[in-house]
């Protein structure tokens, strides 16, 4: 059955073309106009994303657009299923709020002359939006490779925006890890094309057979994507890169960028070859996830700088995302299927995106106000910056997974699946991870609540709208839990086969 361009298909093209037009216009208009362009492009991107989501929710079937009317396997198809729609809206919201937050730090018109830092920041923010949309919508593995590279090239400059030697080193290390990851992914696509003469996800999922070349391709691609997602033990590049960047950049790197390669892992295993991971493979992915949770949390607990603590918490939370693989595996047929565990895992990714962006913004504000981010000396911060510390705490609540946050709902879905399939160790891991997150959030908040001996002198006043931006994202994450009453079913809108499994 060949795909056909659906009625809302043009939206998918808009989602990718809009940011590109914004970037090109910025290059023509120059550094003083770039923020104005971004402040048009980012909200329009959010509107397009919401339109895609609404269309999908209303019609209950996926959107598709055949580029240039060339059918796959020769042509390229853009598709939006439930997972893509949900992730597209989340990233659009996060990037939009980060845009508001970044106005104070990267104001193009505040300086008498054009500054490179703000010019680069706004262009890269739009580029990340574009690359993420392409990752969510791309229908064949090679388009996804290009999207992945776009994402890397947009993310690396954000790491070293301020040009200090440590951050350049972190950026270089990140780039090398990412390049290794993408070249492994590329070998995988070559092998798959050699075996099946197509890279289209839908066609590939029908043709794929259990054979050595396919397995090697899948393993190479997965390892490459793990390196880009910073899954333990390939996480070494992440903490210095994310902690060293300016607050707005850290927020977008930690909240949005790592989700891109994670999403591709999900696409690869759930979309292309659900039957190939098998029991042992799923358990192995789960073990890596558990390792990430334990390692990331313990190292986070030992940090004395707030931004590093949050960065290591990202390492731990990435581990959580991979716990869904053993839980989504059907024990009888040994195939990955679309169930509560997948919905839980994706919801966790969305919850982490919003909460972690809020926490990095809050950390940036605390740093700007106090002039340092040493956790032990945070005393009085809660009195000086109540809204910021509150945003941090709410973000923490979502990471821990207390109701009614999205983190709670996501962990509930995962736990339910773990108990239904009798996989107690993973249920334990979910709970232990929650305890660890509780510990490191509590350390920060309790230090911030202590009254200092001498009155706290703020180094700089923090604009209220920046605090509001952080709080907004934290509240979005908290209230995302209420999707249980509404559009959570959208996550499960997929290709025909997946829908039948559900009913």
């Amino acid at each position: 059955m060949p795909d056909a361009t659906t009625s809302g298909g043009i939206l998918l093209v808009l989602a990718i073309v809009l940011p590109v037009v914004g970037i090109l216009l910025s290059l023509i208009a120059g550094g003083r106009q770039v923020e104005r362009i971004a402040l048009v492009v980012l909200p329009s991107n959010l509107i397009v994303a919401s339109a895609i989501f609404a269309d999908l929710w209303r019609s209950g079937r996926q959107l598709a657009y055949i580029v240039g009317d060339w059918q796959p396997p020769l042509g390229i198809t853009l598709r939006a299923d439930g997972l893509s729609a949900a992730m597209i809206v989340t990233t659009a919201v996060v990037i939009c709020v980060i845009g508001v937050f970044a106005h104070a730090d990267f104001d193009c018109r505040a300086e008498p002359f054009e500054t490179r830092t703000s010019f680069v920041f706004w262009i890269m923010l739009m580029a990340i939006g574009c690359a993420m949309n392409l990752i969510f919508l791309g229908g064949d593995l090679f388009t996804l490779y290009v999207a992945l590279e776009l994402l890397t090239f947009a993310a690396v400059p954000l790491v070293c925006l301020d040009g200090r030697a440590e951050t350049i080193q972190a950026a270089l290390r990140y780039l090398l890890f990412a390049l290794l990851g993408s070249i492994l992914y590329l070998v995988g696509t070559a092998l798959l094309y050699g075996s099946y003469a197509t890279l289209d996800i839908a066609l590939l999922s029908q043709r794929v057979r259990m054979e050595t070349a396919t397995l090697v391709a899948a393993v190479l691609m997965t390892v490459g994507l793990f390196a880009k997602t910073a899954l333990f033990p390939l996480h070494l590049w992440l903490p210095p890169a994310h902690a060293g960047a300016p607050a707005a950049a850290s927020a977008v790197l930690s909240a949005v960028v790592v989700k891109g390669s994670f999403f591709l892992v999900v696409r690869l295993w759930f979309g292309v070859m659900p039957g190939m991971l098998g029991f042992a493979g799923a358990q192995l992915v789960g073990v890596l996830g558990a390792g990430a949770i334990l390692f990331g949390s313990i190292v986070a607990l030992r940090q004395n700088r707030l931004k590093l603590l949050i960065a290591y918490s990202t390492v731990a939370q990435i581990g959580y995302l991979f716990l869904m693989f053993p839980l989504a595996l059907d024990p009888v047929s040994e195939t990955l299927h679309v169930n509560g565990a997948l919905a839980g895992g994706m919801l966790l990714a969305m919850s982490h995106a919003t909460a972690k962006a809020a926490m990095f913004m809050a950390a940036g504000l605390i740093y700007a106000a106090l002039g340092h981010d040493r956790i032990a000396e945070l005393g009085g911060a809660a009195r000086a910056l109540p809204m910021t510390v509150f945003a941090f705490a709410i973000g923490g609540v979502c990471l821990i997974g207390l109701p009614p946050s999205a983190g709670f709902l996501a962990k509930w879905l995962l736990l339910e699946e773990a108990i239904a399939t009798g996989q107690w160790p993973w249920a334990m891991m979910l709970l232990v991870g929650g305890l660890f997150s509780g510990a490191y959030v509590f350390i920060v908040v309790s230090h911030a609540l202590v009254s200092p001996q001498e009155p706290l002198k703020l180094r700089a006043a923090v604009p209220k709208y920046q605090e509001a931006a952080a709080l907004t994202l934290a509240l979005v994450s908290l209230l995302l839990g209420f999707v249980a009453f509404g559009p959570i079913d959208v996550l499960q809108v997929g290709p025909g086969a997946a829908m039948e499994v559900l009913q």
Partner: protein
Amino acid sequence: MSDATLFGLCGAALAGLGLYGLVTHPEPLRKILAFNLLGSGVFLVFGFVSRRAATAGVPGDPVPQAMVITAIVVAFAATALAIALVLRLLEQTGRATLSSDDPASATGEKGNS
């Protein structure tokens, strides 16, 4: 041994050498060169794939060739970006290295905002 197999074997050898260099060499410039070697190996494998998928009357499948051109452009851009970073690092610290002990102490402990 057919041409295609020779291509494949050369590609595999180059990729192996590149991967070894990328993992073991501590210097960024050598790592970047090793990445390019690894990339060339992978592009050769693509050539092999294109040859293998050839049908009657067509000497090679054009789709992998189109892909490999895109991949070469991407690898070129990546190399340029990496070299630019290495040069900036060299300008600032006087040495381009990835070991994390020295530059921080050279520039003093600075905050990250």
